[in-house]
């Protein structure tokens, strides 16, 4: 067997991809390590301050708050996301409308995101929104001044964008369960509720674990939704980690600090990914 990289047929095919990744991912990540030791505004040459930026991370109350906001968002989005996806996928499985409904649910994930933001804004805004206007302000999510409402909005938008993919994940898991397993349970006298809770849900565990993982990532990456809808406000209540990073570098122009923050977040992301890979492998057994 040819296992040595050099002898793999067509091995050179991977070179363009690897070269580009080295230039546009690996090199910038190494460079950011160097930037993280600078006090730099992104324009004039920076001044070396060693580990100053990293030390600052530990005393930054805003960063702490941003971490809590991110975790809160994940904690409230995840259970809803997973439950909805499982309920919908089980309900649709094998029905006449399965394909068309799944197609509709997947649409928001691709829809021009700036247009989605416009739709959401003009629909739900507490002042100019159509719902608030029709109901004379009786039905309105006060995300202009209430932190919880703004966070709810960002969470709802994140679910809106990603629920279609989540349903596909559970559906794929469902289709992997052999019909015989369900029949056998029924023959043994299990009712539909028991089939659902005692057979189907436990067998879906790998899919649901996978969903929890990507759902967590979506919550962490909701910074685009934050930028489009709330800009971190009101009073910083929706400043998730990704948005905090953006603000630090591109609105406050603290590139060195932003770089140090990126490095720590990257380490966290890798640790997170490794743990999840392990959890996934565990759940497949």
């Amino acid at each position, binding site marked *: 067997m040819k296992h040595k990289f050099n002898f*793999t047929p067509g*091995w050179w095919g991977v070179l363009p991809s690897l070269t580009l*990744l080295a230039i546009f*991912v690996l090199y*910038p990540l190494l460079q950011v390590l160097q930037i993280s030791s600078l006090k730099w505004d992104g324009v004039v040459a920076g001044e070396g301050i060693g580990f100053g930026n990293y030390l600052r991370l530990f005393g930054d109350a805003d960063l702490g708050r941003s971490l809590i906001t991110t975790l809160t968002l994940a904690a409230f989005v995840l259970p809803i996301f997973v439950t909805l996806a499982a309920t919908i996928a089980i309900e649709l499985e094998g029905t006449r409308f399965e394909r068309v409904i799944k197609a509709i649910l997947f*649409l928001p994930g691709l829809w021009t995101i*700036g247009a989605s933001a416009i739709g959401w804004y003009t*629909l739900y805004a507490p002042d100019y929104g159509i719902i608030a206007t029709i109901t004379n302000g009786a039905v309105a999510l006060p995300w202009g001044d209430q932190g919880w409402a703004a966070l709810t909005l960002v969470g709802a938008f994140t679910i809106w964008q990603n629920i279609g993919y989540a349903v596909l994940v559970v559906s794929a898991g469902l289709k992997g369960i052999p019909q015989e397993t369900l029949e056998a349970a029924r023959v043994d006298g299990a009712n539909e509720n028991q089939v659902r809770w005692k057979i189907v849900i436990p067998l879906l565990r790998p899919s649901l674990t996978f969903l929890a993982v990507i759902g967590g990532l979506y919550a962490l990456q909701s910074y685009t939704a934050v930028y489009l809808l709330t800009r971190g406000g009101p009073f910083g209540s929706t400043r998730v980690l990704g948005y905090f990073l953006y603000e630090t570098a591109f609105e406050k122009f603290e590139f060195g600090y932003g770089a140090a923050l990126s490095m720590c977040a990257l380490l966290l992301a890798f640790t997170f990914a490794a743990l999840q890979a392990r959890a996934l492998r565990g759940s497949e057994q």
Partner: protein
Amino acid sequence: MKTARLSGTWLGKIVVGVVLVFILLPIIWLAYSAFLPPDAIFKTSGVPTGFTLENFAKLPFDTLIRPLILSLVVSSLVVVLQLTVSLPAAYAIRSGAKLLPLYLLLLSIPAELMLIPLYGLLKDLGLLNNPLALVFPFIANPFIVFLLYSGLAKLPWTFIEAARLDGANNIQILLKIVAPLLRPEMTAAAVLGFAAHWNLVLYPKVVLDNPQWWTVQVALTEMLRKDPNAWGKLGAAAMVTSLPILILYIIFESRVTKTLEGGLK
């Protein structure tokens, strides 16, 4: 017709119904508001009504149509380059190059973490405020390599071995055997790659702040920020800029969802 393997419940049906409304509401509202006359906002209660095409006629060229064209061109170009670079890479990995873990690792880097590192690199290369900044960093995409690799992993590889024994070289195999067999995955990868690039918001805003190089998302964001209560104008802009995605999706929907679902099994 296939029958349901699991019986539905009333609660489940209600959940599906509510979620469908929740999903479709913003889209239907956009389509409706695009035809509302500008004075609709001043109606103090009840559902605003009226019909006009004026909103579409008045869409600004420099701050909307031009960015729309730029985005269409650049995102299409990126997708073509992505497939050109990713297919040989996926083929090499499927043939035995042990690089899959590296690609999976790169896949786990959250996009926002690349904002500052890329900004530094583009600054050094003199590519800030240059539309090439929208192209180069996106050509090598670990997700697309992974998607194509999953497709290749399902092909019977004896095919390829046989072609090799018959004296076909790798380029012939790639073009004449692999690419045709992999069409569903390549289509799905193209649609998803296009949408991902098309929907970038913060990156183009940061690396291209000259209005000359606004992308469609930057243009929409600016419009919403300036005129948050111009329902008709915003709706028309949103519908026009969503049309390319809608058309792509209507044509290729089943390939996208099937490939994703198949890849998840």
